[in-house]
């Protein structure tokens, strides 16, 4: 398996799906000639031309709206939202239209739409270019939410997203674009709703999403030096959610910490902690702990920003407290 970057994994999956299916096309701001602000579509414009790689105006509600209509009528669009924060401009199109049109029409249509968007703080982009808003979409029936944590998962899950007949929100932590990892060469879509145990362990379960998986793997190494073996479980997709794998792990270890970069309150950590508390209640030796982003907008200065994001020290500290 060759090592490629998270970014290259995205480009590869997009290219292969566009080659495989001529109804797949890409649209977004600067995705064409410039190859995307994060260079996630580099080379695609040259290969597929302006008819299948569309540079849109800066009009998020408008082009996400177009992608919904195109998806309803025989196309399979991939719409890139550059910064996940901009999804808020397109909320009406995603939540009121894309998520509901199939249901409202009694199943008369399908909306095979992939919306790629970023999340993640840590690069001094401040409050309007750093949010992790995946929980908002996981709240809405009719959408699927994907949160890959490594290049291989990004490639396999993006292929599944593009082939899925429903609107899928595909979240890429922009801090991971340069991460390198082994990626299989075969055309291997990864099914939704199957969590993956990224590191096996018997003493505590760390449920982590997106870039928090990397944080938890680092924390697990630190804990291992203390003789605590952490199991790191990555749900890969929040909707659908593989409750079974998460619950089984917690029943085995008796301790659980949920780590996610969304703002902690009313977010992913709360939902997963609640689910685990109910489903694994009799097996828990301590309440499920949660680590999310601080309850402030993401600040600009690194000295302010970095402490608001979960890190391995906090995970280690939380596990030690939990087990003491």
């Amino acid at each position: 398996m060759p090592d490629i970057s998270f970014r290259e994994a995205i480009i590869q999956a997009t290219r292969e799906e566009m080659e495989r299916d001529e109804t797949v096309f890409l649209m977004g701001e600067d995705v064409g000639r410039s190859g995307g602000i994060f260079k996630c579509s580099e080379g695609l414009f040259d290969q597929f031309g302006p008819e299948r790689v569309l540079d849109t105006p800066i009009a998020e509600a408008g082009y996400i709206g177009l992608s919904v209509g195109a998806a309803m009528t025989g196309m399979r669009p991939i719409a890139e939202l550059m910064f996940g924060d901009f999804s808020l401009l397109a909320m009406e199109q995603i939540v009121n239209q894309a998520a509901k049109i199939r249901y409202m029409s009694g199943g008369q249509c399908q909306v095979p739409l992939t919306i790629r968007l970023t999340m993640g703080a840590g690069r001094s982009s401040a409050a309007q270019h750093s949010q992790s808003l995946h929980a908002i979409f996981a709240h809405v029936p009719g959408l699927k939410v994907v949160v890959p944590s490594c290049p291989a998962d990004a490639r396999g899950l993006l292929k599944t997203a593009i082939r899925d007949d429903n609107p899928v929100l595909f979240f890429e932590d922009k801090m991971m674009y340069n991460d390198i990892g082994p990626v299989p060469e075969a055309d291997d879509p990864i099914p939704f709703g199957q969590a993956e145990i990224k590191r096996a362990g018997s003493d505590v379960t760390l449920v982590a999403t997106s870039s928090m998986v990397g944080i938890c793997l680092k924390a697990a190494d630190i804990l291992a030096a203390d003789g605590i073996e952490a199991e790191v479980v990555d749900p890969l997709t929040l909707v659908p959610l593989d409750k079974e794998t998460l619950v089984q792990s917690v029943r085995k270890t008796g301790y659980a910490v949920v780590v996610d970069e969304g703002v902690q309150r009313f977010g992913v950590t709360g939902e997963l902690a609640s689910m685990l508390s109910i489903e694994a209640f009799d097996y828990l030796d301590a309440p499920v702990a949660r680590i999310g982003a601080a309850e402030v907008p993401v600040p600009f200065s690194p000295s302010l920003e970095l402490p608001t994001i979960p890190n391995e020290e906090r995970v280690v500290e939380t596990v030690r407290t939990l087990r003491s």
Partner: protein
Amino acid sequence: MAKAKKSTVKKKRTVAKKIPPKAPRKVIKAQTPDLDADTLWFMYRKMVEIRKFEEHVWDVYTRGLMPGLAHLYIGEEGVAVGVCSALKADDYITSTHRGHGHCIAKGGKLDRMMAEIMGKESGYCRGKGGSMHIADMSVGILGANGIVGGGFGIATGAALSAKMRRSGQVAVCFFGDGAANQGIMLETINMAVIWDLPAIYVCENNQYGEHTPYHRVTGVENIVDRAAGLGIQGVTAEGSDALDVHAKVTTAVDKARKGGGPTLIEAYTYRYRGHHVGDDGYYRTDDEVKFWMEHKDPIKLLGDHMCKNKVASAADLDALQEQIEQEVLEAIEFGKDAPLPPPEQAYEDLYA
């Protein structure tokens, strides 16, 4: 502060001058296309279907046979029928919350519509959509929409899809004067213009956004005045005159199919009833309503044209009206007899 005062005074004067709107300000050059008898009969039939269907929806509502609300299209039939009679079966439309007329004109079936309005399993949306979400994708109806301006994205996207698939289809986005103040209109029309999409934007200017006269909340006298700013060709139509609407939409459709890009058509029209079935229209004068009903009724205008051109006699038209009355009554029976969906169906149709 002084500046603010001045602008208040100006606003007051403008409002007083503009209310109530009696007729469109724009002078419309109405066109009368040379249509064969079958087409005229079809258009007349569809308008009467809409009128009778809507009158009965009001009745169904007041008799408590339907849950929720409905927004009636009575008075605006000339627009839906003028537009849809210029389309092919596989062309697309997106509709509005006042959508029954568009659905009937594009080929929706009365019985399945009525069943949906009543929340029944055999309705178009299996009881999941109701009056505001009727869709029949098999005849290109991409759905009525509960969000004002909700059709802009879908219709423009369908036009993009048609262009990419080289299918020759066009997409019509129906919207009201109220939706013309939603930002999505600018965003989507802009994209239709830059990519020459086969889209036709039909503004049904019925002069009220819910209870508010559009002049009070709109910075231009006519919605079509915005066309130049959007870079789109703008056309005005007499919405009460289905023939004029048909002629202008036909031109726009021909242009769109040839790759000539989108058109914005503003059709002046009027809803005889309130915003929804429970609204008595207190914000309009009786004279104003009477003016439109007496002078601009789309069914009467087309009927007169057909009689004048010896395509039909008054007795023919009466007979058709009676026949359609029966068809609507049958649709109501169909809806009444249909079962309600069982609760477990709430969990179906969510994901494909």
